[in-house]
Structures are given as C-alpha cells and as structure tokens.
C-alpha cells in the first residue's frame, strides 16, 4: 500500500530524513519509534505534505500512485490521514461544521454525492459511539479549550468519519492519561481492517500495549536503523535507546 524509497527531507537546509525505506501492506500496523529528534514526526509530516519540509531525494508510492507531487488536500482525499500530535484550534468553527466541509470535499474528489444533513448526522452518531465522544464537544469550536484527551479523541473521531486507507498517528499517546489512552486505542483498533493500514509514531512502548504492531522500526538520525516485531518495542522499553545509538554510531565511525 505504502512504499517509501530512499526518502530524504530537510527543513531550512538542515537534513532530517536521510534515506528512509519502508514497506507497509494493507492490514498491517507499523510502529515507528526512536529517541527525540530522530525524525519520527518529520516522517509523519512529510507523508502528509507539510510544506516546511523539502523532500530532497526519494519517492513514495501510495496505492501505486506517486504521493509526493500531490497537494496535502489531495493526499487526504486519496486516503492519508494524520492524527496530529498538537491538534490545531479553529475558533468559531465547530467540529461538526469542519468535518462536514471536509467529508464532502473528500467525497467530491472520489466522485460521490455530498452527504445531506440527515445522513451526515446519522454517520456522526455511529462514529461517536465508536470513539466514545460526547456530542457537546462536537458543537464547540474545534479544539478550542479542549483538554489533551479531548483533542486526541477528537482526532480519532475525525479519522473514523473520514475512513482513511492509511492512518498515521503522530505521538497520539502524548498527554493522555491511562483511561484516555485506552479509549483512543480502542477507537483505533475498531477502525482497523484488512484494507487499511496504520503507522503509529511513538516515543514510548506504552501505546503499543493497546495498539499491537506487526512491525516495529527504530528511527535514529533520519534512518531506520533497526526493524523487528513487537518484542523489539519491549526490549527498547527495558533497555532504552542508548544501545541502539551506540551500535549505530560505532558502525558509522568505522
């Protein structure tokens, strides 16, 4: 579904990603882990099409299509969803209004009729139950005055509404207490299917107790330096990242 080949990206001339290679197939969950500053969030942003990052080399195929030439909105319409680490506030615009605009633009791109108010509301009801979100929250200004947990839950709700093919969760666990973590993870798990894939970007193993990955990749200095199964995440939890850093740095100096 997603094939990243030798991806290099920099911000204001400073290289952050230095040759990422990654294959993600439908039905899989991949976890991207790594120490702070290793490029995890950059990878998520580059895939979503954030402009500050300049892709200097490499290519990304998404469902057989070149992803990088597409605008951020077209990537979203093709089915790429990014759950933000820090969801953005939009005063005066309710989640409901925001999502209706978004969903209908996505549907238009896919050649589908826009949803009328009745159908849209019944879809909302269905998805609200999935992520245990309160209707009151959805009529408030998007993310304005939301708690950390409410923001993240709202991200997953948006994901449920837009039904993406590839979901990228950028540090979705940060700022969540254990109950919120469980609710958010449950939501993500319920949305998984054989046709969709998930990339979980996280610093800690904790989230992976709930969203169990098929593969774990360790990112360090802009490269994937180690890949494994969920046991690798447990090993990292136990030993930290230093041993990987040492391993990589010693080979680099040879």
């Amino acid at each position, binding site marked *: 579904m997603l094939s990243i080949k030798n991806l290099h990206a920099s911000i204001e001339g400073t290289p952050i990603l230095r040759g990422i290679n990654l294959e993600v197939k439908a039905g899989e969950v991949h976890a991207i882990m790594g120490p702070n500053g290793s490029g995890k969030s950059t990878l998520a942003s580059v895939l979503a099409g954030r402009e500050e990052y300049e892709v200097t080399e490499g290519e990304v195929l998404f469902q057989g299509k070149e992803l990088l030439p597409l605008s*951020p909105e077209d990537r979203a319409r093709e089915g790429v969803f990014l759950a933000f680490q820090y969801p953005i506030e939009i005063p005066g*615009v309710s989640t409901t209004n*925001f999502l209706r605009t978004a969903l209908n633009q996505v549907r238009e791109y896919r050649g589908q009729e826009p949803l009328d108010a009745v159908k849209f509301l019944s879809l909302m009801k269905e998805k609200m139950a999935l992520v245990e979100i309160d209707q009151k929250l959805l009529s408030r200004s998007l993310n304005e005055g939301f708690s950390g947990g409410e923001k993240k839950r709202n991200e997953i709700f948006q994901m449920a509404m*837009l039904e993406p093919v590839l979901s990228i969760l950028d540090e979705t666990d940060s700022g969540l207490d254990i109950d919120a973590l469980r609710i958010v993870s449950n939501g993500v798990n319920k949305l998984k299917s054989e046709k969709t894939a998930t990339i979980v970007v996280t610093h800690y193993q904790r989230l992976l107790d709930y969203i169990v990955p098929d593969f774990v990749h360790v990112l360090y200095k802009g490269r994937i330096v180690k890949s494994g199964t969920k046991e690798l995440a447990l090993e990292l939890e136990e030993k930290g990242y230093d041993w990987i850093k040492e391993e990589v740095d010693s080979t680099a100096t040879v």
Partner: protein
Amino acid sequence: MSKDNQILEDLTAKEYEHGWSVNFETDEAPLGLNEDIIRWISTKKEEPSWLLEWRLKAFKTWQAMSEPEWANVHYAKMDLQALRYYSAPKQSKKPKNINEVDPELIAIYERLGISLNEQKRLQGIAIDVVLDSVSVATTFKETLGKLGIIFCSFSEAVKEHPDLVKKYLGSVVPMTDNYYAALNAAVFSDGSFCYIPKGVRCPMELSTYFRINAANTGQFERTLIVADDSSYVSYLEGCTAPQRDENQLHAAVVEIYAGAHAEVKYSTVQNWFPGDKDGKGGIYNFVTKRGICAGDHSKISWTQVETGSAVTWKYPSCILKGDYSIGEFYSVAVTNNYQQADTGTKMIHIGKNTKSRIVSKGISAGKSQNSYRGQVQVMKRAHNARNFSQCDSLLMGDQCGAHTFPYIDIANPSAKVEHEATTSKIGEDQIFYCNQRGIATEDAVALIVNGYAKEVLNQLPMEFAVEAQKLLALTLEGSVG
C-alpha cells in the same frame, strides 16, 4: 512563503461581481455644486420651501467646513465640482406601484439577484430600491400600511408625511454634524423613510438596496427610521456599484429614533466596488449613521459587514439618552488589495443604567489598511453605565495593516467599561490542518474567517447571514498568509 505570495497574486485575478452598468435614459443635474444646483434638485423633487431652506442652510454651513483628515485613510481628494448631484432614470410617469415600474429597471435588480416581484420574493422582506439619486420601487407597501407602518421613499415621505419628516429630519444627525453630513443635507436626493407606530412589531424585514449606476455621480441618500414607543423593526441595507476607473462618492446619512421600549435592529452588508487590484477606482464611502435611544428601555443594534469600497469612513453610533437603554455595534470589516477602512462606533451614555456592547472584527489582506476607531463616552449623569468592547484583528499576508483607536471618556465614577483586543494571523498551521482533512486552501480560509466573524454574522437575519458568508469568502479568495 513563496506559495503565499503566489496565492496572494492569484487573488488579484478575482473580479468584482457587480461591476457592470446599464445604459438608460437619465434625467441629470448639470455638473457641479452651488446654490442653483440645490434649488434645481429641490424643484425637481417638488419640495416644500422649508426643505429647500434647510438644504441651503446646510450648504452654507458646509461651505465653511473643511474635509476631515483625522481618519487613518489616505486618498486623492475628490473634486466635488466635477460631480453630478442628481441622476435619475427617466420614467414616463411616476409609478404608483411596483407593477408600473419600468421593466428595464426591474431587470437591473433581477441581475443583482433582487426580485422586486412581491409574489416571487421571499415572504418577510419588504424592499425599497434606490438607483443613483432616486427610489425606484418599494414593495409590500400596502401590507405594511394596514398596520400603520409607513415604508416609502424619502421623497414620498416629504410629500405624504411632512410633519413626521419635519419633526425627525436632522434630529439625530444635525445638518452641521460633519463635512459629509452637511454635504448630504444640502444635496441628498432620496432614500428610505420608515415609521413604526406605537406598539407595532413590524412583521417583516424592511430593506433598502442602493445601487450606483451612472458615472461621475455621487450618491447622497438619507434614511430615516422612526420607531415609536414599544415598537420593533429590523432593517437591512445592501449596496453595489459598477466597476469604474474613477472614484465615486457615496455620502449617506442614516438617522434612527427609538422611543421608549422600542427596538431597532439595523443591518448592513456593504459591497460597493472596492477598486481594482492596483487600487484604481472604487467607491469612497463616507457615511454618517447614528441612532438615538430617546426613550427609556429602548435598544438600537447596528450590525455591519463591510466588504466593499475603496475608502470607508463610517461610525454607526448610539446616543443612549433614555434610562436603561441599550446600544450595540457588531462589525466585520474586510479589506483587501488597496482598500482602506476606518470604521467603528460611538456609544454615548447619557441616561442611567445604560449599556453598550461593541464587537468589532477586522480582517485585513493584500496591501490594505483596516482601522477600528471607537469612542465610549459616559456622561456625568449616566450612573451605572456599562460598556463591553471587543476589537479583534485578523491579518492575512505580511503587507497589510490593522490598527485600533479606542477612545474612552468617563465622567461618572460608577461606570464599568471593559475593552479587549486581540490580533492574530491566519496560521499556516490552521490551513495545513484543514488541508490534511481534505479541505482545499480557499475553503479553509473561508471556514476560518467565517468562524472568526461568527459572533457578528450570527446577529444578521438568516437570509443576509448566508449572503454575508459568501461575500466574505469571495472578498478574501486566495489571500492566504
């Protein structure tokens, strides 16, 4: 930033939608401004002598005045002698009702999306349409007449209801008030008049639609709204003008009188031609709007969505004379390209326990300048006066300006006056967030701006709110920063 610039450039491709004009036979005054012209206008309108004298007095006062320069706007002064002060479509006979109006004129309004056919119109809005210097039609007159409501052109009011006009004309905005108000008093040609009798709640929205069509012509209309004790009326005003290379002057006066327990809601969606992308042409919108809450427990509420005009100079104000009276001002002012707006309000607290609320949302894009200028004055006798002011500015791009000039003048220690102000930029983060959910940048800007202006847009009557939302999106199309 290069993409932002690109988008800003794209914006300039956006054309003003109502920029067309129509050729028809007109009845015009000679160019220029002098006593003879004023007499010419007055004769043309078959006015009583008291009104001519009133005009001439205003003209004398005006001659001694000079154009105000304190506003934060810069423009080439207009040669007032090169303007025409009266231009009216020629109609073979005066139409008695809407069915007798020249179909050609009706077609103009159809093209603007305004149907004058009472059957076709949405129920619930009566309209008076002013083309250049005259009112061409007023709808629903009979329906309203049954309730004792008078809604007609100013000229007609002078003829049919001279006592009412004489009593209230100039009572809120004196002819000597300011340069443009004095000019208007001297040369005003038409406008709308509205009287709501005691205890009557006007069952439909009343509205005036102003259209400038002729070239080299100023539009000087006057609106007078009188809401007698315990009455209610909601009034709407809309306007457009053709796209012309030269600047045109629009110097209107609106006066509102509210008796005890009366309430007047006045909403404007101003969409005069703003000039082209290089700042050429456009309307100079120098308008004086003021209401007096004369009776106890009266209320006047101004809502304005200002998207047009090259230069705007406008401060819809409330004189809170009656005890417990309430004044409100809700404003969204958008400027783009080279537009300049200096707009705000004055709340003059005279009565006891008077309250005022100001919500001003400025949006600046392109190379425009957008100023809020507001005055809150609490007089000595105004015990327990309350004011809350909120002035927000939203900037798009890095070449525009937003300015806030609040004046607070308190002569009574029991007053409570609050002022809040914020300035923000539409963030790339916000736009990216929208993009990531599949929303195109243009629509993201519209969504964000409408969210920002929501508190004001919510004050508009439903039909107008939808119009205003579209207009905001259109005015700002492409101007991302």
